[in-house]
């Protein structure tokens, strides 16, 4: 079905089902309960899951398959956001032209940076991409101010031409981003008993695109092209002496993953129509590397899981403040309570990065294959009790590099 074998097709169906049910699945705790703060079923966060999932899926096509570790993919994310906002300013607030332009611009941008960076491999490649991304960040921040609006960031204003759409909405504001009239911000709230589920147009738009992006990457993984990319990671010498030119293959992978990043950037702007230079900063590039490694390099689901994991904890942990901690630990004796809170508060709120760093270390040390490996281990524990048949799990998780696979 759809050019997939049965196993992959089933896998895709599961992914679709999970994505569609996300607003329900991520809202397990009743409104007003103590645990409600761990709910993640609100539009802004769910949109981020889908968008950063796309970013990481694309990044994995380069890093997971070829092993080329780019530290500059945020440059394409930023380029995508700027392109989309420009379309909102010039054409209309419909998100489609913005997304199309973003994919084209980031693709061309990736072609340029990839063409130069791929003259080197290994650490030199990583450094080159990092240097390019930092250059882009600085250009966006200062030199290219007419295009990027410098440190203020690019925004939509009432004076923008928007030649195909409305300049000003009926209420006197800038019109909202929309898909042929369907506002990205519009939501439908469904109360069920003590629960309340939010179905947001923006989320579903991102989710459908994420599914397409996932499907595309699944096809690439199973294609001869994907096979060549994996061969590049394993042994370039053999590949060259087998009559294959590795350069255009890596460049194609680089451009494709750059286009994914541009798409993600455009979606960020579609959900919230602004673009700033900080989106191109090296921390943003590093984040997608962490997502991919945390989830499982070279696996289909890993990057998505990693993106969800990081974005979830970033949101939840950074929301927890001293007051919340006091509530939690109020049962402790006063002196002890203060000590515990003093320790804990370094790991929450703006200190969340400390927690993410620790989590990352734990995963890399104990689960070198990422969260997917964790899942496989748990699944294997259950399976061992059942038949030893069906051991061919590799289908979903194409070979990982040796240090990851062991």
């Amino acid at each position: 079905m759809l050019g997939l074998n049965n196993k992959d097709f089933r896998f895709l169906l599961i992914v679709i089902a999970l994505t569609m049910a996300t607003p329900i699945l991520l809202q397990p705790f009743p409104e007003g309960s103590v645990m409600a703060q761990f709910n993640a079923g609100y539009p802004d966060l769910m949109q981020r899951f889908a968008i950063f999932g796309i970013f990481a899926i694309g990044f994995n096509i380069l890093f997971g398959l070829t092993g080329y570790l780019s530290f500059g993919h945020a440059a394409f994310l930023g380029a995508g956001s700027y392109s989309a906002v420009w379309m909102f300013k010039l054409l209309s607030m419909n998100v489609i032209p913005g997304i199309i332009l973003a994919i084209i611009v980031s693709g061309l941008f990736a072609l340029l940076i990839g063409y130069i960076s791929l003259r080197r491999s290994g650490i030199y490649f990583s450094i080159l991409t990092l240097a390019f991304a930092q250059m882009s960040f600085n250009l966006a921040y200062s030199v290219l101010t007419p295009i990027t609006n410098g440190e203020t960031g690019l925004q939509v204003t009432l004076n923008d031409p928007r030649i195909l759409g409305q300049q000003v909405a009926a209420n006197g504001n800038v019109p909202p981003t929309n898909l042929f009239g369907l506002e990205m911000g519009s939501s439908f709230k469904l109360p069920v008993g003590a629960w309340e589920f939010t179905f947001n147009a923006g989320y579903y738009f991102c989710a459908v695109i994420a599914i397409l992006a996932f499907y595309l990457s699944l096809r690439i993984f199973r294609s001869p092209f994907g096979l060549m990319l994996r061969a590049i990671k394993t042994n370039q010498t053999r590949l060259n002496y087998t009559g294959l030119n590795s350069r255009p293959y890596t460049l194609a992978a680089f451009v494709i993953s750059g286009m994914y990043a541009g798409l993600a950037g455009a979606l960020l702007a579609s959900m919230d129509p602004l673009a700033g230079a900080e989106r191109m900063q090296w921390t943003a590039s590093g984040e997608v590397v962490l997502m991919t490694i945390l989830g499982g390099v070279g696996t289909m689901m890993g990057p998505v899981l990693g993106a969800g994991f990081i974005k979830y904890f970033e949101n939840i942990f950074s929301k927890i403040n001293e007051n919340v901690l006091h509530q939690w630990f109020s049962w402790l004796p006063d002196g002890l309570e203060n000590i515990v809170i003093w320790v804990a508060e370094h790991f929450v709120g703006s200190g969340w990065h400390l927690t993410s760093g620790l989590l990352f270390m734990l995963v890399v040390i104990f689960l070198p294959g990422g969260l997917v490996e964790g899942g496989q281990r748990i699944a294997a524990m259950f399976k061992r009790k059942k038949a030893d048949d069906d051991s061919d799990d590799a289908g979903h998780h194409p070979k990982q590099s040796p240090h990851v696979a062991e």
Partner: protein
Amino acid sequence: MGILEVKDVGKRFGGLQALGDVNLSVQENTVHAIIGPNGAGKSTLLNCFVGKLIPDTGSVMFDGQSVLGRTPYEINQMGISRVFQTPEIFGDLDVMENMMIPCFAKRDGSFRLHAFERVNDEKELVEQAEQMLIDVNMIDKRHMNASSMSRGDKRRLEMAMCLVQEPKLLLLDEPTAGMARADTNNTIDLLKEIKEKRDITMAIIEHDMHVVFSLAERITVLAQGTPLVEDTPENIKGHPKVREAYLGEAH
């Protein structure tokens, strides 16, 4: 005219004349061995055929075209496949995937963006690859991870990967170096089988006289970067100069 014509090839490394005026002609459908003591320049010479090194002087013509200045993948596309001293295979991939890559390279050339096809839909290529695995007795290992195999099997796989491309010339650089006797004999048998089953031209660099005399139809003896003699195995065995320069040391 041989399929590979080497004329006056010279190569210096700093002050060392690694190759000087090498002339050599490999005839179609023969196994041509290049032997010589350590440091004679055998590997250097082979590297000049495959695009890894460019000689300072002379020419290397393959099938009527110069190979000099071409990259390894271009030379492979001309019809030269190479087996390495330590097997170079795709360790993270399984045996069948290892076999499919040269099949694609042969059919589609050095690059093709076939991102929407499926590897397993290429029935013709899959069949070719499987047939080759049958020929080298590895078909039962086709789902095995390549890096988990024994060294002998890796060598077998590497040869299968080269042979499935039906190269006009197969180059082998010390295919049995560092192998146990049993593996060496296996490799000899494999090469003999291959030779019987299909027309193939091979140039083989080898230290092991047992291997050389079991396979070669022509032998070139290289010493200090220049060919000493070129002749049939029988004549080489008895040649006084060769005994002095090479066999004397080896035995």
